[in-house]
């Protein structure tokens, strides 16, 4: 009998403070897990990964489900649903809004949270948040801390994600490009094979100051530092970009896409934003 069919009824805890949620987790660890919208967890459960004995529900915690605009950033509570965020003008007009609109289907977006999308490890929001230089507000059991999004996976110790701090981006000027692109196995309601994102500002000398990131298949998100360094050179070339990207990102083959496909497609998607627009006279051949 697989685990999905094991008749286990977990104890469901509904704490009202971050500290209480954290303490419960520590008390029952390792037989405990936090849950927010539960949309991804439900799919995992269907596949045979049963719930732990103690499920700690985060949705009643005060302050995790609201959005506040500060002077330099927007604080997004980790338990805000994707749909709530789509409806926030300050979010929806940015590439994070585009990212959210392209996740799964309405039923999932109504339930699923931004915290869950980040913490399950390869959510589509990750590359956009990295590109936008977002930070995570976390509670580590003793204090609140702020860490860059790309450091969440390697953080030393247990933490509970409480908010996403999204810098208020300036109105785009013609030299500033923000983008998000996703490939799935169909147009919608599918796990992404690849999601890429970037924030780039071109300089007068042909170089590009960019923050680039991607998440592909079951890989952890990658901040593309070699690729960023490549395009920061005044005379960078697509060939050099391919090499830099390959140094940043070595994807494995997966059942429905090869690593090579994800690498090639990622390169094309980035170049379509970074290179051609800056070098229209070289390309411009969108069609023959």
């Amino acid at each position, binding site marked *: *009998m697989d685990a999905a*069919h094991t*008749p286990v009824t977990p104890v469901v805890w509904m704490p009202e403070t971050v500290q209480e949620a954290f303490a419960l987790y520590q008390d029952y660890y390792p037989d405990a897990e936090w849950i927010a919208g539960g949309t991804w967890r439900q*799919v995992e459960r*269907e*596949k045979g990964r049963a719930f732990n004995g103690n499920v700690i529900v985060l949705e009643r915690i005060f302050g995790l489900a609201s959005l506040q605009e500060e002077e330099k950033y927007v604080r997004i509570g980790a338990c805000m649903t994707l749909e709530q965020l789509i409806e926030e003008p300050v979010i929806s007009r940015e590439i994070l809004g585009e990212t959210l609109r392209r996740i799964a*289907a309405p039923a999932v977006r109504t339930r699923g949270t931004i915290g869950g999308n980040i913490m399950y490890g390869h959510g589509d929001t990750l590359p956009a948040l990295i590109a936008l230089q977002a930070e995570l507000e976390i509670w580590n059991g003793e204090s609140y801390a702020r860490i860059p999004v790309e450091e969440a996976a390697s953080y030393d110790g247990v933490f509970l994600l409480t908010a996403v701090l999204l810098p208020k981006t300036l109105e785009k000027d013609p030299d500033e490009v923000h983008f998000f692109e996703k*490939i799935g*196995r*169909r*147009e*919608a*309601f*599918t*796990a992404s094979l690849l999601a890429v994102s970037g924030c780039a500002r071109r300089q007068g000398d042909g170089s590009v100051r960019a923050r680039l990131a991607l998440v592909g298949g079951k890989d952890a998100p990658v901040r593309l530092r070699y690729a960023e360094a490549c395009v920061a050179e005044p005379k960078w070339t*697509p*060939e050099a970009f*391919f*090499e830099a990207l*390959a140094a940043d990102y070595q994807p494995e083959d997966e*059942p*429905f*896409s*090869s690593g*090579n*496909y994800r*690498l*090639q*497609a990622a*390169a*094309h*998607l980035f*170049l*379509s934003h970074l*290179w*051609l627009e800056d070098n229209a006279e*070289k*390309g*411009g*051949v*969108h*069609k*023959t």
Partner: protein
Amino acid sequence: MKQPEHQRRPDAVPKVTGSLKYLTDRFEENMLIGKVLRSEYPHARIKRIDTSAAKVLPGVYAVLTHHDVPGLNRFGIVMPDQPVFCEDRVRYTGDAIAAVAADSKETADQALAAVVVEYEPLAVLDSIGKALAPEAEQLHENGNILHEASYTRGDLQEGFTGCACIVEEKYQLPRQMHGYMETEGGVVVPESDGGISVYMATQHGFKDRFQLSRILNAPEEKIRIISSPIGGSFGGKDELNLQPYGALLALKTGHPIRVHNTREESIRAGLKRHPMAITMRTGADESGRVLAHETTIYADTGAYATLGPAILDFAVEHASGLYPIPNITTTGVSVFTNNGVAGEFRGFGGNQVTFALEGQMDRLAAKLGMEGMELRAKNMRKPTDAGPLGQGIAPTDGGRNILEDVTAWQQLPLSNAEETPWVKNGRGGAVSMHGGGLGYGRLDPSGGRLALTKDGKLEAAFGFEECGQGIVAVIETVMKNTFSCNEEDIEITIGDTNKVPVSGSTTASRGTSMVWTAVENMKASFRRQLLSEASRVTGTTAADLYLEAGGIHKRGAEPSLFLSYRALAEYVQDGDIETHTSFDFPVTPDEIDSGHYLYSFGGVSAEVEVNLLTGTVRVLDLKQSVSAGPVMYPQGYRGQIEGGGIMALGYTLMEDAVMNGGHYQTENFDTYLMPGVKDLPDNVTVKPREEVMEGDIHGPRGVGEIGTIAVAPAIAEAIYQAIGARPEKLPVSREWVLQQIQQRGLLPWNKPEKIPGG
């Protein structure tokens, strides 16, 4: 179209509001839950089965194995070769070993887990090549070849000698899943007379009754099959699935048994479309006249037969499609493997072979420097030409009619007008011909019954099933047209072997055709009976009476309604006004096994947009021209063609039930992807070509399958027109498309040699 464009189907309101009860929604008092234990291995000997621990679990009522089958421990529509319960060997992971009945699903699951099965794994024959290797273990008594079929005419060698241009290609077709919303299941109720009532979906109630009687060693009269409504089937519920287990458990326990596959169980045990490898070599003279056509088909039929032989026959028949080529050799082999069972699926082997045939026509046309449609026109069949096996068929000009539409559509401008960056568009077209009915030499009876019920309804009874295709709307429409009545006057009886006449299977695009024929056969007698009884009851001469809404009307009277059907029913005994018909699906007069007589034709034009950055293909426009005689129910007709087109779009671009080592890799709809609403074309057109030849007496042909046939080759050609590469393997992967884009240097930066790994 004669009918109003929008006409509410009889089952619309309950379906839309969710009030309709499907058979899997059924609940009975004292009902137990049945579950089936299926094999862990795709191929193994069974050394030992021990059910003792499972039997003593509290809440478990029965644990059955092959020892508990009173009759034939086998099923299969054509040849019963699939064990109800395996005795000493399993041949695929869907093979059943034991079944349990318990008071809850959880207890049933625990009982399954407590059944001990000791296996000795055997080499897994997970490909046609492995199954045909000389050293391969024999999966069945007669070896690993289920069926071979062939057709030859003319002299192939000589034909190729006269060719100025020859193309050869190997096409690979995937294992498509039906993907019905409702998985297999229902409830079996033991009756006080020792019989059973089986509330489970099937496409042929009487066939299920026959197969169950053989398994249960019980007379057919003791078995009642109630089988509609059905939440989708597409061929997938034609064969028995859970019925034997529900029936055996119900008889053993004396309780109603509910059995219902989870999606994983459905995928593991259920049928799929046959994966095929098809090699074609086709040659033409300089003018484009196709002279020689050689086809070799290998079908992976999985572990058991079901209708595998007939599907191979169908593919062999349709290998030359609409083109009366003088020199043809077609050979087909259907091979047993340890993969999932392949069987009945909308299109029935025509989809695979038409992808190859139409691919050949496009390759040939390109090589000859001709337009694809011009080559097709040059080789198109004439109205009185013989069928593809040389058999006489009902004269038809459907091929030329649909080709005319597709040819015109090919001239339409592409929709993007060169504006969108990073995409290339292309348009392609293809045509197809599809036989209806089961074919020469196969029992293919049909029939129906009309009666006035005690409640004053005009009852139309047929042994067909409603699986979402809209047969009830067809019946209602034909009745309204024939007897000028209202919906309220009609009572439709289907899907219950205790109540319906033999109409044959709800398969092979035969339902609409058979309903129309049956009513044509019965209408004069039924009308006469109604009018003469009305005349007798009212003392009015029958010549002054006629049928219209609500009942019998009298000429010249105001209001004209003279005697309602309800009033008439009060004056007659049950059965007084009743008429029956039985007949066979029309077949070719020539003794050519499996040859069809009535054909429908489908032409497709598809426009695609290929994303040069990612290899993603989107179908923007899908137009279908269909020649299948007069349209009976326009919405249903359009639904079948549009739905069939979308199903084929999935087949072309994303659907494949991948197997690895005899195990499904796509165990649910999160990995087995079908088109979602955003994958649908922006524009879908269905154009019925209703004209038939003068003197044609066959009325409407069914359209259940024709909308699925020519879509894949049309999309493949559209991809070629966009990027210059011809797909020969379905589904067309994004990865393959991107490789082709890179190899052709279609992006400004992608000089292939400069791309690491490119």
